[in-house]
């Protein structure tokens, strides 16, 4: 993957997830941050930090992004969510508008 096509998402503990830009833009919030003309630091460095989202949750979110792209292109599978993660994942999804 070329650097211009990727985005870095950083969790509360400092873990960095480098994912495809299209995947990240499944999140309306991230899409706005990256495409807005307002001159966000995020747009320039293509890095977004989420001090409120823990690493396992952010990892699951990234999995969801890829699953969502896959689903939209016709491969209809089930997205499994571990029961203990549901609440935190829900809050992160709400924040990210995914």
């Amino acid at each position, binding site marked *: 993957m070329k650097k211009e096509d990727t985005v870095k998402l950083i969790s509360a503990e400092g873990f960095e997830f480098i994912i495809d830009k299209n995947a990240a833009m499944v999140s309306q919030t991230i899409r706005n941050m990256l495409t807005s003309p307002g001159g966000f630091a995020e747009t320039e460095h293509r890095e977004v930090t989420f001090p409120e989202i823990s690493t396992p949750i952010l990892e699951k979110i990234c999995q969801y992004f890829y699953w*969502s792209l896959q689903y939209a292109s016709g491969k*209809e599978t089930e997205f499994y*969510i571990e*029961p*203990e993660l*549901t*609440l935190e994942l*829900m*809050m992160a999804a709400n924040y990210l*508008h995914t």
Partner: protein
Amino acid sequence: MGDQSLFAELGELESPLVRLCIEKATQSGDAVETWRRQRRTLERLPPQLAGSLLHRLHRRRLLYPSLLEVFKYSVERIDLSGENSVDAEWMAYLGAFQYLHSLNISDCHRINSSALWALSGMKYLKEVDISRCSKVDDAGIKHLLSIQTIEVLCISETSVSTAGVTLLSSLKKLSKLDLGGLFITDTALASLQVLKKLRHLDIWGSDISNEGASILVNFPNLTFLNLAWTKVTILPNVSSIACLNMSDCTIQSMFKGEGNKARLSKLLLAGALFKDIANAFLYFDSNSLSFLDLSNSSLHDLSFLSILHALEYLDLSGNLIGDDSVKYIASAGANLKTLNLSNTRVTSAGVAVLVGHVLKLETISLDSTATDDLAISYIGMIPSLKAVSMKRTHVRGVIQQNGGDAECVLSLTALENLKQLEKLNLEETPLKDEAIIPITNLKQLTHLSLRSSFLTDASLHHLSSIPNLINLSIQDAILTNAGIDSFNPPLSLQVLDLSGDWLLTKDALLLFVQRHSDIEVRHAHVTTFQYDNGDTKYHLPLQTSMRTSQQRRFSSSPLKSKMAAIIDQRLKYSRAELLSMQFASMSAAPFGEPPTSPK
């Protein structure tokens, strides 16, 4: 992915992943156990997510009193209306909610006055709805008085008396007060005068008289007033009122008196008896009157309509008015969007008078009138129409041409001019298959209702070509199993009502249901789904009961349509789940029917 009905429920949530998470979290009692002890996360839940989670648990019958505790820091609005298991124990937990500002426990029949004690002293509670909790009396009101933040209070059809209502004068922030169906007298209104912020007052079905009504001028902010079913005959000039309901009253005069003219936008006078209809509309400013309901009010002369130029909704059903009155409707028709002339003496000639004068008309009802196919041709000349109802009229679907060989023209072709037509109701008109054919050209049609014993499978076949049909009803027809088998419904179809189609057998219907699991089929053979729910939290809903100590004024209140005496248990399951249960429990018989062996 998922089911249409699931997404309809959670429609307010725009985010798909949030929906998936809530679905997973509320899948079963075990799922709930995995997260109910995640205290710190639960405390951080934003209010609308917490609310969605709580109400989803409730709809899935997974909510019980001690589970409420996990939401006590996050939930702000709760609606448990109609839930018969809600009692003092539930209230005890709800009373501990820190930030609750809206509570709806209407139709919760176990709630009594002492259960309300648990709510005393709540700091942020603004809206309380305990309508139809018939066990709540004046003692219950005393507990509510300690909640000084209350702005909206609904206690209609409870057992509160005039004495209890008098106490409400201490809730200074009250802006909406629903006291419908209570036996309160003028003294109650007198004591409520101090509530200067009151905007909305419902005192329908009470013992208020003209004397009490005269006090109403002392409420400076009153915009909504409901005096239906009272003895009030004279309404003084309460100039702040914008919406007035005096249905089923005998009206001598309205708004006669000194001061500014009231600027009314909505007037409900269904079933009213007028002493002087010509002057009834003179004393207020009718330039903004957009909604007028005069159904069943023994009207003869509609000349007063000509001054009402802003009318958008007009209901004149059930009055003895004929074609000569239609010119007055036409004169007020410039902004008219909805017109109800059912059960009147209007004929096709009357409909002709409307053409050209109602350029914004979207909905028209001519049910149970002596109109016929000629009226359909006039209706075809009102291109703004989106919904047409002509139940029980003399429509036959054909017009005999004059002279010589009886050449028939299909009358419904006139409807093809209505490019925006979405809903068409022609129930109880003797239509035949050929007459239906023009309907197939109505590409925007979403709802179609037919009920005629002449309709055969041919009609079903014709109608399958309407691309956007959502709701199709062909009742009392002679449809056969073969017709149902070969029916290819449009992709958008969600409901197929075949009630009264007596030739259809249960097997054929079940086969259809199996093949088209996303369509809801209605027929006597396809009744309630069997659900095997071992959940002890399931309670049979109780019927609304009459009070024993005091006779309730109305065995069925005017607002009965709002009361759901039976909760449709099917609502808690998605359609796919219901079907899997239906076919899984083949040994269990549906309600009231002996088990039939599968063919």
